[in-house]
């Protein structure tokens, strides 16, 4: 260990807006890079996060599938788009966990004490979560294809369906950031599953709401997860099993509106929570 004086000068931060934007993007990319390195160093993270949907696919298609009658011939054509949607819906747990780990370990404080772009902490998280979600979808679709699922929609319709899935996931980033900053520690973040589970399940993911008791069916229909699930079923040309209510008939619209509403509510909440760190 040498005691040589260190003279590396600090680069001067530009004040112009153009440069500021440049650093906002560059810093965001540095954070995204960090998460990509996590994937390379620990591919098991993806395996664990996909474990639940994959096991669910197998359970619902092969174990419960024969007993499930949703009014269409093949249950997997109904259940698999639901599974894609549920994986996106549960994604906010991953965001919340990543946020709480950084907060717990002091990494967030270190970032905040550095002359980096303040927005990059959050935008970096968001971009890498969307990339992560896209990767999840690729793996899920491969499994779905393997068990016989097909999209009968056109190329554009199919692509739009995946855009809608990622749109839902993007909106839930803000929910995840907000909850991650709200909960005190990692154990509490793990307990968020108690919230995530009904949010994912009381929806049209596995069963049409019209087959549920009236009051529960109404909740399930209005669940944003249902709108995305129904919209992508339509786009994939998979059976939809609509009960004929307004919300079910307008799934294609609501699959865009819900994520925007969620963002409008939770983005400001997350920003406020982030600013509260300096209280």
């Amino acid at each position, binding site marked *: 260990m040498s005691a040589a004086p260190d003279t590396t000068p600090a680069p001067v931060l530009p004040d112009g807006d153009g440069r500021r934007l440049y650093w906002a993007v560059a810093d965001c990319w540095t954070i995204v890079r960090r998460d990509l390195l996590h994937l390379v160093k620990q591919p098991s993270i993806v395996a664990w996060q996909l474990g639940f949907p994959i096991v669910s696919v197998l359970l619902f298609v092969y174990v419960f599938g024969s007993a499930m009658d949703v009014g269409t011939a093949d249950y997997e054509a109904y259940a698999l788009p639901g599974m894609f949607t549920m994986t996106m819906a549960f994604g906010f747990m991953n965001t919340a966990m990543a946020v709480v780990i950084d907060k717990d370990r002091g990494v967030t404080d270190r970032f905040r004490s550095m002359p980096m772009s303040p927005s*990059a902490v959050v935008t970096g998280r968001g971009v890498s979560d969307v990339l992560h979600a896209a990767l999840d979808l690729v793996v899920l679709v491969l499994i779905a294809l393997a068990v016989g699922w097909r999209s009968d929609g056109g190329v554009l319709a199919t692509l739009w369906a995946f855009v809608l899935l990622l749109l839902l996931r993007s909106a839930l980033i803000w929910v995840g950031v907000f909850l991650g900053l709200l909960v005190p520690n990692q154990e509490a973040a793990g307990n968020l599953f108690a919230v995530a589970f009904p949010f994912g399940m009381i929806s049209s993911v596995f069963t049409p709401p019209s087959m549920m008791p009236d009051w529960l069916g109404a909740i399930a229909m209005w669940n944003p997860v249902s709108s995305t699930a129904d919209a992508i079923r339509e786009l994939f040309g998979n059976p939809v099993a609509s009960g004929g209510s307004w919300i079910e008939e307008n799934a294609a619209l609501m699959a865009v509106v819900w994520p925007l509403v969620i963002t409008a509510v939770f983005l400001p909440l997350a920003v406020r929570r982030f600013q509260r*760190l300096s209280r």
Partner: protein
Amino acid sequence: MTTPHGAGSAEYAVLAEGLVKRYGDKHALDGFDLAVRRGTVHGLLGPNGAGKTTAVRILATLVRLDGGRATVAGHDVVREPGRVRRGIGLVGQYAAVDEILTGRQNLEMFGRLFHLGTRRARRRADELLERFGLTDAGDKQLKTYSGGMRRRLDLAAGMILAPDVLFLDEPTTGLDPRSRNEVWEAVRSLVAGGTTVLLTTQYLDEADKLADRITVLDRGVRIADDTPAGLKGSIGGDRVEVVLRDAADIPTAVRVLATVADGAEPHTDPEERRVHAPVTDRVAALTEVARTLQDEGVGVEDIGLRRPTLDEVFLHLTGHRADRDGTEGATGGNERNGRTGEHEKTEKKETAA
């Protein structure tokens, strides 16, 4: 504006005046002053909940202050937080590094976030790994590191830009003695390179070894500010201390010590069968006491010259001892423990908020 700011900022790396921070009704800081000379290690000591962490977080621009003002590395923490951040490094209570990445990847990431650019960030990572003796471990994931290695990497990450001021918030808490030595070594080498260090610690021997000057903080205000030697001197100089075999001999020992004592009455601690008194002519007094006690047939378990420790200074100033992860000695009863518990709660709230 006025004297200490502006003119003084050349001399002081950190200058804080009347810092106030409230959490609800509680004043975490209640008019706290601090002046840290450039190129020195400055210790910040205080009981749990005294406001140390809050002070550091304010100076590192992590927490807004409710009153007073502070200049760090030549810039005002409220008006120019961006400029302050370019001149500081923060090493908190937890090793704030990424567990999954390698040591080198961690340093490169922080280098990029300090806007060094890819190539310089990479070069800087190599330099720092070498400087902190981590070159061999550079490509290993952090979860394989020992506590001391992790801390050194944490220090390195706080040194990316060779900051003017480095905040070290309890850098050796929970480390074994060898790792603590590694961290101390690293801190000394940073200071030799011109960095100013503000160190908070629970370990008074650590402050004694590292700090050029110490500020003692209690209930949000500064209650002392001096060199370690000055602080010890403030509660008296050398003294002769005798530990007796039999508590019944205490009166005899008191009489003998009184003959050499420097004005003051000898102090007794019956439970530990200990008697001590301040002296000026140290060796003569010690010889005299030893001989007389032997002549009188008093059984002596231990005898010696002692200097006040920082622990004693701390006890004297704050009314209680420094807590060390709950392993502190047997002194004090329920009252003190209750009070410590209360302090701990505030400290937790402090960190959480």
